[in-house]
């Protein structure tokens, strides 16, 4: 709509106008453009109004109509672009207070229970429904509780100073070399109530000490969990039933147990207990050395001398006991190659192996 009455520079400016409007990416630029075209002073529109004033009378009508048309066209374009830019600004403002949910969030502090403690806690949970409570004894023990009360002969090698740690100022005291002295303590403590209670059953998790040099499979301190049950008419079948339940609870339904005859001075009969390899399910693997079974613990029926030592009549009461090495089981199920990792306390290991339960 070219009108010959309009000055050529206005026509050129008007032709460039739509491009300039589109090029405005913020409201300030748009306002500057608005001023240049439709502002009160010095704008194209203002100059056109000046032109209209001085135009010959007969042209005024046509020229006025052309100017209005141009001004309307400009104002409409400006208004529509202003709306767009205001919308964009609103969106930016709202974005500024929102975060992309994919940004890494702040994580709560991440701690862990030690894997050995987790395993011991788990064992307590497994035996709790069977009525076992937890007995804990001191690590510094007497020969009476650590050896005599367990029917361990006077000249047993475990009593020697090459196997067990003794105290310099107290030759009668030692660091317990197994959790079995807790049997003696627990039996003595509960003996007076045995009739009333109908029996005794408990678990004794704890730290024990043996004079073994530190290497990938030995540590002078390690953990055991001891279990003891005394009742009327307790036999090997009860031991088997209990361990069969416990191993299934610990390793899953496929975890059968196998008893092999063995010997420990504080039980008779005695046995070693194997469990079907929890890693390969019995098919044979590196952990079970292809046999499908892994040796898990030692057990047996409590020797009558042990009951008698604690003041319990072995002609009335009988029971079973079992003891397992916590590190051994932990290493087996986790396939940890080196025992020392459990005592090094590297947080990377603890985070990997630990948890809250």
């Amino acid at each position, binding site marked *: 709509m070219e009108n010959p009455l309009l000055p050529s520079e206005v026509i050129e400016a008007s032709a460039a106008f739509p491009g300039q409007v589109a090029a405005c990416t913020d409201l300030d630029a748009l306002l500057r453009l608005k001023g240049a075209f439709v502002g009160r002073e010095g704008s194209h529109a203002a100059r056109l109004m000046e032109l209209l004033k001085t135009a010959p009378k007969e042209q005024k009508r046509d020229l006025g109509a052309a100017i209005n048309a141009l001004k309307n066209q400009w104002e409409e374009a400006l208004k529509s672009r202003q709306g767009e830019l205001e919308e964009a600004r609103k969106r930016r403002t709202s974005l500024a207070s929102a975060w992309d949910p994919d940004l890494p969030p702040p994580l709560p502090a*991440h701690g862990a229970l030690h894997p050995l403690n987790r395993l011991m806690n788990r064992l307590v949970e497994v035996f709790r429904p069977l009525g076992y409570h937890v007995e804990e004894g001191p690590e510094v023990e007497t020969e009476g509780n650590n050896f005599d009360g367990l029917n361990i002969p006077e000249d047993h090698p475990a009593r020697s100073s090459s196997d067990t740690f003794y105290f310099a100022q107290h030759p009668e005291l030692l660091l317990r070399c197994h959790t079995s002295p807790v049997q003696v303590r627990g039996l003595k403590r509960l003996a007076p109530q045995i009739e009333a209670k109908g029996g005794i059953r408990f678990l004794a998790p704890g730290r024990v000490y043996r004079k073994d040099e530190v290497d990938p499979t030995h540590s002078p301190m390690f953990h055991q969990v001891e279990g003891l049950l005394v009742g009327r008419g*307790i036999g090997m079948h009860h031991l088997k039933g209990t361990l069969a339940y416990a191993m299934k609870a610990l390793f899953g339904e496929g975890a059968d147990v196998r008893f092999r005859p*063995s010997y420990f001075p504080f039980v008779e*009969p005695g046995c070693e207990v194997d469990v079907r390899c929890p890693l390969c399910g019995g098919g044979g693997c590196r952990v079970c050395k292809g046999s499908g079974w892994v040796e898990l613990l030692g057990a047996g029926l409590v020797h009558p001398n042990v009951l008698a030592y604690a003041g319990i009549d072995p002609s009335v009461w009988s029971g079973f006991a079992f003891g397992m090495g916590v590190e051994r089981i932990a290493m087996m199920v986790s396939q940890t190659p080196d025992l020392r990792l459990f005592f090094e306390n590297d947080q990377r290991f603890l985070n990997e192996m630990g948890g809250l339960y």
Partner: protein
Amino acid sequence: MRIEIKALECELPALGGRGTVDLCELLAGLGFPVDAVEQVNGETVLEVDVTANRGDVMSHRGLARDVAAKLSAELSPLAVPALDEGEALLSVRLEDPACPLYATAILELGDQATPAAAQAFLASMGTNAKNLAPVDASNELLHRYGHPTHAFDADKLRGGIVVRRARAGEKLVTLDGVERTLNVEDLCIADDSGVIALAGVMGGDSTKVDAGTRRVLLESAYFEPRVVRAMARRHGLHSDASHRFGRGTNPAFARTGRDLLAQRLMAWAGARLKGVWTAGSERPTAAAIVLQVATLQRIAGEPLEMAEAAALLGRLGCRVELTGDVLKAVPPSWRHDLAIPEDLAEEVLRLRGYDRIPSVLPSLEGYPEPLSDAFIQGQDVSRRLASLGFHQTVTLGFVRPEADAAFAAPDNPAEGRTLVNPLGVEYSVMRASLLASLKSAAELNQRQGAKEVRLFEIAPTYTSTPNGPIETRTLGLVWGGTLGGEDFLTKARPVQVADMLGVLRELGADQVQVREWPGGFLAAEVAMDALPKPSHRVIPTFKPFSRFPTVERDLSLLVDLDQSYRALASEMEARVRAAAGSTFQDVRCVDVFRHKSLPEGRQGWLFRLRFQAMDRTLTSEEVDGWTACALEAARSLGAELRA
């Protein structure tokens, strides 16, 4: 113990044709697990694990005898003619009851040659033949039949021999070339020159058989196991002989062992028998063990027939007498481990197979005991700390003396906690504190590049007393490094004492001192007994709470940099409580502002007061009045309102 399958089958032909895996399973089922299988010159040799109570199976024939009982099979007859005993050619005096029986013989040797078969067998046993017939034959017999024998060079003996206890300070050079000083507990063989052998442990150098030996005196005796064990331990001499005598040999086999040795010397060295005799006699047979049917069935967990038990025990060599429900068994002379009815029951179950024992869960007879407070508290505190970001550690109970001294109380001397036989000085003192161990663990993690270290341990610490070390269950904590800086919302900052105080308050251990260590570590230690005990209430008693709004007022104060927070807060608390009574809830500092724009020596503390009434909504006038009281209290201690 090494077992050659061929030699085992020789003793028990019924084993023939059984695969190695099958045999290993059979042995394991009897209580003799096989630790390793190897090939020696084409023969399969097993490394069999034997428990300390079973000296009787420490030979091919002994093991075969046990397997024969299991399989109800016959052992090969023993190929040995009993030698006719006669006059003693030399005096053998048994002065000590620890040696009740001493079978002997004197032979003159011809040309010696240990047969190839015997050499191969010794190789399977992991020893080399010496090509001295008396030595090789004695070794071969030991592994084959389990009865140790010895041969002295008879021409090196001075006078007759005596079996007696050593005199203190007597010396003997044993066959391994070591001179040993004996004590009065040692049982020895002696002649007129003095001690010539440690009984049941090792012969002496002065009477040993060598290539020039023309005449030998044989020894096949019974020595008390306890005495032999003590000697082996005392002299650190754990020989094949001491292993067997120490676990108990078969006294009834003493004469047979001598006869076998003499027989081999006649065959291998053209030996001529000069005299055969025995000093002493076998001990009286063992007493009968009485097994009641009730005991057997209780242990077995099923109604086993006594007849079956009697048959099984008979197969083991027991003399069994069954009268109704009572079984009497006299163990054979080789079974020193059978003493009580439970032993017999075990043998019955063992031969039947432990896999036949039924599996029954015992019923609960009484009420279970609860878990102890201490145990629950340990679990609770551990879980609480783990969920607060701490890692549970396990460290050794012993430490080196310097590490212990750094944290031990002055009234807790290390001497009372020191081991007499530690693995090394670094493991010699039972620790007075967990902190030394936690410090090493924290430093290790820092060296490994951990940005933040948060560790704890719950373990005993030890206190010296005149009666020995006593244990205190203790919690130790260490925290150090940088917090935060790992996400877009949390700024990085070093761990502060206040962080540790917050954790301690959470545990109910507000009064515990926080230690600051080089490397930015903070540590604390507290006895578990000092922490709140778990409550036995499932849910605590209801306390009414207000449903009316809480009103908060902030007071921004300028205080001196050395102003005591405790003093200021308690002064404000006292004054506001006096005015507002129970509507006053608490006052606490919620921000500290330090900046150069503040007057020198001053800092800004922002206090927040909270008010709430049980029965109404508070008006702003009354709250403003109480806040003014707080300000007045603050001013009385030199604080002013920040502009």
